[in-house]
């Protein structure tokens, strides 16, 4: 009972302190922007520095528009991550299985990270058009690296003694994979997934900037042109909320799947 109480308190602290800090920051912003202090300091028109209250009302007024565009971006993110997950895990398994492939491909995969993928987004738009295709490709390309590298790390971290033990207990290669290697690699795979879901929304926004007719990134871009600053901030809030929800879901899935940790 004692223990539970202490745990409850620390959990509350963990939530309460950041929430208080955030509330303080928003409050300070509200005061600074409604008194015109920020706009004056930057010598800007007042309407270019919306207060949190204005952003909140923009969020409410544009809820349908934001929801429609959020759904477009979410679909790009989820499909992109799914492609990266399938390709990344598959490739990690192949590289783990065939040493030659790992030696040949791994340095290239690392080197490919120097390519600014968001910069090739316009090329993909030229190739695949304005639809969802190039967005999925960009998100998948960005997420492929953390997923593949972490999945491979996980597979390589498997205790070779455990594999010997399983061989001695008559396990086929397939059984060794499913009963020892795959579970042992799971925590590491989730580490890669957590990185992927953080970068995926950024990738989706960049992909939309390269050419699109809908999505949160597209909305931000068109609002920039029209000085709709409050709605821009509202869009950023929705995008962050989307990313936070994805991180939360991934963490939840990890707790559900990796129960032995």
């Amino acid at each position, binding site marked *: 009972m004692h223990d539970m109480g202490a745990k409850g308190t620390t959990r509350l602290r963990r939530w309460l302190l950041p929430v208080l800090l955030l509330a303080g920051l928003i409050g300070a912003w509200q005061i600074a922007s409604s008194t015109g202090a920020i706009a004056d300091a930057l010598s800007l028109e007042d309407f270019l520095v919306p207060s949190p209250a204005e952003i909140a009302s923009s969020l409410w007024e544009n809820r349908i528009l934001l929801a429609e565009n959020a759904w477009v971006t979410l679909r790009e993110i989820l499909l992109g991550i799914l492609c990266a997950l399938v390709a990344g895990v598959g490739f990690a398994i192949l590289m783990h299985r065939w040493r030659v492939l790992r030696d040949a491909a791994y340095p290239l995969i690392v080197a490919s990270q120097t390519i600014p993928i968001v910069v090739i987004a316009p090329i993909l738009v030229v190739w695949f058009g304005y639809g969802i295709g190039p967005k999925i490709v960009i998100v998948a390309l960005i997420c492929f690296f953390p997923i593949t590298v972490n999945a491979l790390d996980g597979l390589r971290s498997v205790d070779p003694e455990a594999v*010997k033990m399983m061989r001695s*207990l*008559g396990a086929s290669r397939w*059984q060794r994979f499913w*009963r020892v290697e795959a*579970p042992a690699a799971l925590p590491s795979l989730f580490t890669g997934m957590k990185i992927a879901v953080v970068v995926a929304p950024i990738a989706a926004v960049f992909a939309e900037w390269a050419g699109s007719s809908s999505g949160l990134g597209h909305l931000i871009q068109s609002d920039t042109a029209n000085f709709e600053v409050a709605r821009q901030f509202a869009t950023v809030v929705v995008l962050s909320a989307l990313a936070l929800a994805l991180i939360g879901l991934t963490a939840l899935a990890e707790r559900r799947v990796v*129960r032995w940790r």
Partner: protein
Amino acid sequence: MRQDTRMKPELGESQAAETAPRRERAPAEAISLRAVGHSFGDLQTLAGIDLEVAPHGVVGLVGPSGCGKSTLLELVCGLAEPSAGAVAVGGDSAAEGRLARCALMPQRDLLLPWYSAIDNAALALRNQGMPRNQARAAAAALFERFGLAGFEPARPSELSGGMRQRVAFLRTLIAGKPVLALDEPFAALDAITRAEMQEWLAAALRSDPRTVVLVTHDVEEALYLCDRVVVLSARPARVVAELAAPAPRAENRDEAVTDPEFVAAREEALRALHAGSRGS
């Protein structure tokens, strides 16, 4: 005879069910090492080892740390190949044949944290294609018999060191292989738990005899559990002495290990061990 009792991986599930109750009587098979040498690159670990273990014989290997005892077990189990000489189990010197006849209990318990105690113990049955519930039922009978009743659903992390070793040993036993290769099974335990575990293992082998190769650095443990103790030298390992144990797996361990004959054998083994580790 072997075909009757040994589980073959290709057997279907219905046949597995018929074979399961008889699994506990594994056939008796001999081990034979002739002039076995082994090296990792330039590092020679074993040099001309000759070793015969009779069916249902229990042989202990003692030697200085890093002398290649674990490698010897891997050779017996078909997990490695000798660079010289021949290793045969049940007359079969092919790696596949040895792999099929031996079960290795590695130095650390290596229980898989994602499985419960019972699922860890039943791993070999699952590998043979037995459905989960049937494998659990087969393992549960042994949990009952070997003092682990009630711990079936426990995670390995929830078990004490002694219990983990018991589960690891049962996992090896349940495989139903004629030969058990035990690599320092109780090295990680405290002295009292280790003595208890030795008695427990002695009882297990009395009721379910197998051909056993036991690697340990504890001379007393080897002399209590084994029929015969082979003392190895420092690397490259060779046999420096062979001793017969006076009262293998006696029911009363305390009495057995304080018997003057046992004490004399222990001193002789220790002398051989010291001489061998100096690399004379």
